[in-house]
């Protein structure tokens, strides 16, 4: 029981630190100067004529994340199919 108490206390402590880290990022609703995102907002339509900037980012500017993400999904499918494979039937 002592162990469990210690863990719960540590979890609450870590949660408090997570709140701290999250609050430390920037105030909600006011990200300040955002040069990288402003570049996307300004140039996505003109450069590659994408109306939806999020899609443009997902498939072009940060396309490599997307192939990684497709690989994650593929990995998960492969792992699930491996774990729950039919295997050999009894003769």
């Amino acid at each position, binding site marked *: 029981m002592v*162990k469990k108490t*210690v*863990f719960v206390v*540590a*979890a609450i*402590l*870590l949660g408090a*630190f997570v709140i701290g880290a999250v609050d430390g990022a920037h105030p909600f609703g006011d990200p300040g100067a955002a040069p990288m995102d402003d570049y996307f907002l300004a140039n996505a339509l003109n450069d590659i004529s994408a109306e939806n900037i999020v899609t443009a980012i997902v498939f072009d500017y940060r396309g490599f994340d997307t192939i990684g993400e497709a690989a994650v999904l593929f990995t998960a499918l492969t792992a699930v199919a491996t774990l729950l494979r039919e295997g050999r039937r009894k003769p």
Partner: protein
Amino acid sequence: MLGTVYTGFGYWDVWSWAAFFAIAAALVLWLRAQGREDYKEGTDQDEIYWSGNVVPEEGADITVPASSAYWGFRKAMAPFYKVLTEMHTGIGTDIVGCYVVVVALMAVFVLM
């Protein structure tokens, strides 16, 4: 030199050690060649001496199993190993708990 490493405090040369090993091996082989000449295979001389008892047929009976190796060491360190094995409970949440405790402690100390 290909085999020399300077550590800043001294150096290490693998080829001189290789030479040392070669010389030592030659010495050992020479010493071994000086051994008794009346040793003959197939006689009682190459039997295992088992304190006068009958030697068991199965090899496993005359070897020390791995669990019994370093018996004295384990005996001497028993309190230490008791703590250590109690720590490795093997429960999944304990592993997560260790992680959470360590990260929380690090965060506490880094902010102090």
